[in-house]
């Protein structure tokens, strides 16, 4: 089982946090800080594993991380996960992000954390690995985005059709809009 997935930058600023076990917000922040502290003081050319901090379950859990440019991707897992498997998964995750955002950089993650969550949801579900095939992940993410776009499109065309300047004419339209959105 995966207990938590954290992404933070070189200064420890969280870019994504996903806990598959409940902690309150303060503990979550502490865990992120502690993990950053543990991970950031390690050299570049050492192995990608280290024992978990006290907060996240002590030595029964392992932190498996990768460092890409300005970002750390850290997975906290228990003994039922294979170390190399998770390293591979991080790679798949990053490659998927790269495909979805077209040359992903930290800014993409900063401004579109919800999209990152959606991509992650196609890979890991409730702490268990759902899909490791990148093409499959991208297909599903694209299909969902397309659906979202089609929903937004009909909304936007509706707004364009009703010039907001004319308040009198708007009344009827917007009533129609409300009923339309309710029935949809």
């Amino acid at each position, binding site marked *: 089982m995966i207990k938590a997935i954290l992404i933070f930058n070189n200064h420890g600023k969280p870019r994504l946090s996903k806990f598959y076990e409940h902690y309150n917000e303060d503990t979550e922040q502490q865990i992120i800080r502690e993990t950053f502290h543990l991970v950031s003081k390690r050299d*570049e050319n050492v*192995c990608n594993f280290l024992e978990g901090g006290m907060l996240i379950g002590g030595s029964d859990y392992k932190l498996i991380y990768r460092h890409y440019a300005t970002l750390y991707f850290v997975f906290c897992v228990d003994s039922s996960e*294979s*170390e190399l*498997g998770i390293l591979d998964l991080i790679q798949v995750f990053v490659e998927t992000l790269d495909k979805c955002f077209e040359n992903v950089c930290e800014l993409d993650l900063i*401004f579109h954390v919800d999209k990152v969550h959606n991509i992650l949801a196609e890979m890991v579900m409730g702490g268990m690995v759902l899909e*490791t095939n990148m093409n499959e992940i991208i297909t599903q993410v694209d299909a969902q985005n397309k659906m*979202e776009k089609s*929903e937004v499109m009909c909304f936007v065309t509706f707004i364009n059709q009703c010039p907001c300047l004319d308040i009198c004419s708007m009344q009827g339209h917007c009533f129609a809009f409300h009923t339309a959105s309710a029935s949809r």
Partner: protein
Amino acid sequence: MALKIVKGSIDRMFDKNLQDLVRGIRNHKEDEAKYISTCIDEIKQELKQDNIAVKANAVCKLTYLQMLGYDVSWAAFNIVEVMSSSKFTYKRIGYLAASQCFHESTDVIMLTTNQIRKDLSSPNQYDTGVALTGLSCFVTPDLARDLANDIMTLMSHTKPYIRKKAVLIMYKVFLKYPESLRPAFPRLKEKLEDPDPGVQSAAVNVICELARRNPKNYLSLAPLFFKLMTSSTNNWVLIKIIKLFGALTPLEPRLGKKLIEPLTNLIHRKIHIFSSHKMLCSQSHLIVSLSRIAVLISLSSGMPNHSASIQVMKYLGLLAMSKILKTHPKSVQSHKDLILQCLDDKDESIRLRALDLLYGMVSKKNLMEIVKKLMLHVDKAEGTTYRDELLTKIIDICSQSNYQYITNFEWYISILVELTRLEGTRHGHLIASQMLDVAIRVRAIRVFAVAQMATLLDNAHLLTGNMQRMGICEVLYAAAWICGEFSEHLENPMQTLEAMLRPKVATLPGHIQAVYVQNAAKLFATVLKNQEGNTDSTAAQETSQLMIDRLPLFVQSANLEVQERASCILQLVKYIQKLQQKDVEVAEEVCALFAGELNPVAPKAQKKVPVPEGLDLDAWINEPPSESESEDEQPKAIFAKEEPKHSRPRHTEVDEKELARRREARKQEQANNPFYIKASPSSQKAYQEAPGVEHIPVVQIDLSVPLKVPGLPMSDQYVKLEEERRQKERADKKKKEKKKRKEKRSGRGRKHDSGPESEEDITPAHMVDIVTEEMPEVHRSCLNITMNLKGNARTNMISAKVYDIQGNLQDGSQVVVSVIFENKCDSFLKSMEFNVLDSLNSKLQRPEGSGPHDGLTVPFQLPPGVSNEARFVFTVQSIVMPQKLKGTLTFIVKNEDSSTHEKLDFKLHFTCTSYLITTPCYSDAFAKLLESGDLKCSSVRLEGVIMPFHHLLARICFHHHFSVVERIDSCASMYSRSIQGHHVCLLVKTSGQTVSIDAKCDEPTLLGNVLDEIKQTFSQC
């Protein structure tokens, strides 16, 4: 009015979205908190709007703020609102927010049940997917119970995307609601052979997680997994399967042998998988993998530039070795040098792994050498975590199995003393408990230990110097106690007494002060005894005065324990002083206060206490719960690790004679053993006379230089001494051997290897009183997954249990019966044939071409103690009546020399319930169904049902395949459908202990039978 709302919502269209919020936060670096609080106010305004788009936008922003550590639980209700939006875009935002901040104690979760159910059955696969993903993060026991059926239905959805998510989430459901495991398991098993690789991988994943908790139940799946392992190409699935086999092989050793070949193939094919195959089944296999691992590590340590990937391999190699170590310590020991080399690695993770391995590396021969190396590391190590780890490891490897590897305890004590010099360690108490343990259990060491402890006490100011060292001051606890308790060995008790009564002591933690005070009293007694021997009585009076002067400091302590002891002892000393002034000899009486010896007590000493007469430990104190109750409880234990305890084997059965004989033998052995000190009255002498120890200086420390804590050279010196001692011993042994050889020549001699020095040849310089007794066996858990015991046939040979009868949804006339066969005898069972006497109504489906009376061959053989499952398909014409079918199972029992034909008769009971299939139904459809009027009505009353209503419902759901449509207070409507499409509706009401069930169905006979069965279920409890 409407206009206002519209205007407002159009304005809101131009509100801040998530990107604006992030940008805003980045622009307000200085007053981030203030900016965010204004944002939260805005969000609160937005949430009050009626427009769902605005709300969703607000919730999206809240999700971001939650990540930054802001509590957003106040918006839980709004999140539910957004979740229930009909648009996918908003729904997804809502579920994401819910998965980030909902948890079991969020109270609005119970509002979501129906929404989630609706989403699960949505025609849009992504609505369902999003709901499943969200649910996986916040599923509660209630949700799991209510939605288990819906999710189970999704497991056979047409879209693989939904199937894999449904399979995966079942694990979470099992965790929260274990009762669902049984009904869901057959379907889960089916999914192992799903055509879609994603679904397959999900099913493997779930079963692996389940098997980790209780491997025994999944042994029967081994053949299936074996097939998967040899056929699958998905690395992820392979890794999981190998992990699963790792859990299974300890239970089924033969599995190991079978696995060798495919595993070695795999290892050769994909080297990176080896890290996860951690079961080591046999020697040959082991050597293959071990040599590979060793090659890997040596290869990686030989490389000058440590690239990260090589470090990864090194780490994994060490990890794998630690698994091997548990089963085959010898083969790992040969790589000792390699592992010691890894201790010097610059990567802390690798060093820690290597440390773990050291535990199994030590022997009597190399313990000192290894510990010396570790001590060097302790000095070099920066960072307290690693140093603390080193410290615990040193103590671990030294103290393992009752100090088995320690040959010289003086060396060990000095190591412990050296460790106290560590700065800022947290493990002071660990060192302290080791000191106490060794001093109490190893009599011969006490003189030395006391001298060392006295030095420690003298230098206490070094340990308490700064606050950082507070952890280490625990050691003083042990030092004070040892000095007090064994004060007769003290060189200069007076000096130690003064050290213990220094004003500085008052800065120590309370519990340590308490020990100081108590032991100062013990020391005082010893000092008095020594001084009263002299003619001069003033010295004794001075000592009393010292006590009276110093003790008031402790009387004022804030710690109650210290206060109490100090005032008690103060009064005592005052009284003694009075007596001394009258020239009364008091030393004897004062010593009597602390007379007697404190002995170590074995952890299992309780066993020695005789059972009082008339006490029957096996009798029930309270009436046992009824049988059916316990059966009901069983599912809860599916994850339990412990089997219901077997009554412990009696130890009293050894008769007196045997005991006497053993005692005699033990005494004999002790008498012959020069190192055994306990029984001898003059232990001190025995110690000094022991061969091989006489040249160990008893006290080597120069006490006139009190500031010097005995340091590293001390323990080094022991290594040399030990070497000498062993040489001498070897010489002694050779002499003895010569003698023996002479004896041999003269007559019968014993076999004896006089090869190079072996483990056993190194005799320890000190003996430890070993106070443990043999541990009772740990019983592995064993729980059957047998269920719905409808037909149960049993002889002493084989048991066949029908655990599931399930209608086939696709074909309204088919019923699948799963039977578990278990071999209970010691012989091999083969050629099993299953045959049923067909009735007009139901027929066993036989392969084409076979006659109506031919049996079906069971497709496996059963080695002793193994169980396996087979499925048989029956064709049923009418399903309105329960039926019983008679059948026989024939099989051949094969012994080593003979084989016999055996037969087992059984009855299969098809209840009407087994024709029902859990089908979800919505209240509107349900109402329509009831209104339609083509249903016949019937009702039944159950009396004396004592269980909570939701248990009652759960029971009906699970035993009789119903689903709850709606529940209001103590009234619920339930629905199920038969395989031939009959609707069955129930209205269950409860008042007090009476439950009334009104039922409607389009087939009255079926209904009557189902009700009878429900009644029967509840009459059993």
